[in-house]
């Protein structure tokens, strides 16, 4: 069965861009902008709480590591639609891709804001400087390549708007390669974001340090990808007063649950094989965070156990949020809570540091709203769409 197109073609949403929501978002972005000026004039220490015991704070762990994971909607949906040929998910592609595009571009921007000697950033791509044994080298190159690939993948939307049909046709010839790269590259870097931790050795608590880190991060990235698609669909529906494509989302959630189950099996078998079971029951903050993280991973399996629950948008939304939070916690726990370079060090993000991360999220949402209003991204709404989706 080929990808079916029995749904309306994407169309700009239209409507006013300036709403109370966008004004607040713009304000948050502006605040973050001012803080960044201070950062560039006075150094990272002037606005963040990072220190030599915790050289990576939320700008790396949230904006880059988690931000990019949350941006895996495009990856997960592309995998389903173009590799497993589940054409019925096709309408989700453009919005998912857009969210991914923003998420990754901002994650890339987040890296640039965090680098101490950012003017040398091109060294990472330059032969002679590039150190290919470094996990970070591979992460940086793959993420950059992926951002480029996504902009190309997304270009049909621009090309349509500006009526450049010739270019679009030429592009279509190579689309399969772009799509293949769009699945390969995130597989590589999302797993490697986990591999980053391997060199830290004993500094990562045994509850998270394992040679299977790339696999765990990859599986959660995929699962989060699906969760994010559900999450954003609910948000769009609510925000733009559009109907939800329940059947699709219900089916998507099943895929998500299978991925989640596989992940949990790998996670716990690994813990048992490594002999880390004892660590699961010590009285420490790490253990508490571990259990909260895994409770959130298990929650969607409970919430969406029955087929009826998978037709309930409220439950779908809650389950998606739980999974996103779980993935968020896996990364916070492995990079920050479970990281200790030595006793005596403390870290909690400062107010300006948090405001910058919030500003980045605000920018992402703002950009998303702008683009869906002016470009053909979301599927057009008609009565037949509702009937057709039954």
């Amino acid at each position, binding site marked *: 069965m080929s990808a079916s197109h029995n749904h309306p073609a994407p169309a700009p949403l239209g409507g006013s861009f300036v709403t109370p929501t966008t004004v607040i978002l713009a304000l948050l972005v502006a605040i973050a902008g001012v803080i960044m000026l201070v950062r560039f004039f006075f150094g990272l220490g002037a606005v963040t*709480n990072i*220190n*030599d*015991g*915790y050289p990576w704070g939320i700008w790396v762990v949230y904006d880059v590591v988690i931000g990019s994971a949350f941006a895996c909607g495009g990856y997960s949906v592309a995998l389903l639609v173009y590799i497993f040929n589940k054409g019925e998910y096709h309408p989700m592609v453009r919005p998912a891709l857009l969210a991914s595009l923003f998420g990754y571009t901002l994650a890339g921007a987040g890296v640039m804001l965090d680098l101490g000697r950012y003017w040398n950033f091109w060294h990472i791509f330059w032969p002679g400087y590039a150190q290919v044994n470094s996990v970070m080298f591979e992460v940086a190159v793959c993420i950059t390549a992926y951002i480029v690939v996504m902009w190309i993948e997304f270009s049909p939307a621009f090309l349509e708007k500006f009526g450049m049909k010739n270019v679009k046709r030429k592009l279509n010839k190579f689309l399969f390669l772009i799509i293949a790269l769009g699945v390969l590259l995130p597989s590589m870097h999302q797993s490697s974001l986990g591999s980053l931790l391997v060199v830290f050795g004993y500094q990562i608590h045994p509850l998270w340090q394992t040679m299977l880190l790339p696999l765990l991060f990859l599986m959660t990235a995929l699962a989060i990808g699906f969760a994010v698609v559900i999450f954003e669909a*609910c*948000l769009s*529906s*609510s925000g733009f007063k559009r*109907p*939800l494509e*329940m059947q699709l989302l219900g089916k998507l959630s099943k895929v998500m649950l299978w991925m989640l189950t596989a992940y949990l099996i790998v996670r716990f078998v690994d813990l048992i094989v490594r002999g880390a079971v004892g660590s699961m029951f010590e009285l420490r903050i790490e253990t508490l965070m571990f259990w909260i993280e895994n409770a959130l991973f298990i929650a969607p399996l409970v919430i969406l156990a029955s087929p009826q629950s998978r*037709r*309930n*948008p*409220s439950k*779908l*939304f*809650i389950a998606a*949020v739980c999974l996103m939070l779980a993935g968020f916690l896996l990364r916070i726990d492995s990079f920050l809570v479970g990281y200790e370079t*030595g*006793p*005596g*060090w*403390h*870290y*909690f*993000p*400062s*107010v300006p*540091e*948090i*405001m910058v991360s*919030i500003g980045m999220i605000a920018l992402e949402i703002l950009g998303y709203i702008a683009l869906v209003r002016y470009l053909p991204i979301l599927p057009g709404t008609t009565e037949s769409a*509702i*009937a057709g989706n*039954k």
Partner: protein
Amino acid sequence: MNENSFENDESMLALEKRLGISRRSFLQMCAAMAATMGLPKGAEAAMAKAVATKKRPSVIWLHFQECTGCTESLLRAEHPTLEKLILDVISLDYHETLFAAAGHQAEAARKSAMKANKGKYLLVVEGAIPTRDNGIYCKVGGQTAIEMLKECAADAAAVIAIGSCSSWGGMPSTPPNPTGAKSAGEVLGKVIPNIPGCPPNPYNFLSTVVHFLTFGKLPDVDDIGRPKFAYSRLIHENCERRAHFDAGRFALEFGDEGHKRGYCLYKLGCKGPETHANCPAILFGDVGNASWPVGTGHPCIGCTEKGIAFAKPIHALAELKSVRPPAGFPGIIEDQGKGASTGALILAAAVAGAAAGAGAMMAKNLGKNVKLDEGDAHKKQAERNPS
């Protein structure tokens, strides 16, 4: 009127006449002595009274294997001066260096003083006592040092060893110690109070004597008999160059830049870190600032310590007996980094709360829509299929 003012005190007036100094100078002298010994306030008054009223105690002073440096050191004392001490505060009944008499006359004077003050005189020993070959390497008036010491110590109220030689063997005991030089305490077979130093600061000795005079007993001593007021701390703990040690500034050669600047002399072999004495506090010779070896630029040789002075080379590095790192010395674990500020916690909580609230509202609304949508769908289906 203050009962300690001694204004109309008869004995005080007599003392003034006797010592030829004003009451004020005398009281100042007592105060200085009390301060040296670290005695509480009011002690100087007791001292003054004791000196003024008590009968001058008899002192027998023996010299054995010594260079007479300890006596010479006392000669340079200012408060009181030695002549005041020997003429007016104590009754020096035997002292080979200061005696006008000599020979059998001197020995006879000693024996009669000992008889007259039996059980009440103070015996001071200067110099080590040779013990090899029955002690023949030091004889006075045909008597070996060992015999003389034992004889004099038998009826003494107290025995004090002055100087390193009599305190622990001193220079004569330098390995290989050919004469078998020993301390007075070792010869007598007991720990006796001793004032080590080569020479010791005279005020350490004088304060000890006046303490005895005032309170009828000697001041507190440590486990090897050294008065704690002078020998309980290491020179390193009190040294005026300690800051240089702590900052790592050392003189590396005599006369180099660091030496000229008064840097720490540890690398030149200063034994301050393993020597107990109060030199940096009271200095020598009453000539003012830095009048002690380290102050003049020469490393301490540890002259009060057995096993250090004359045994360890002057250039050899000292072992640190105690290092009290200054308060700012970094510990293995220091608290670093900023934890959660109140503002950050509030902000994080606010964000979490807002997100949770929005999420809950969204979930509720989605629930409503579903019911609505399902309702709509059923209606439409019913419309299409009336049956």
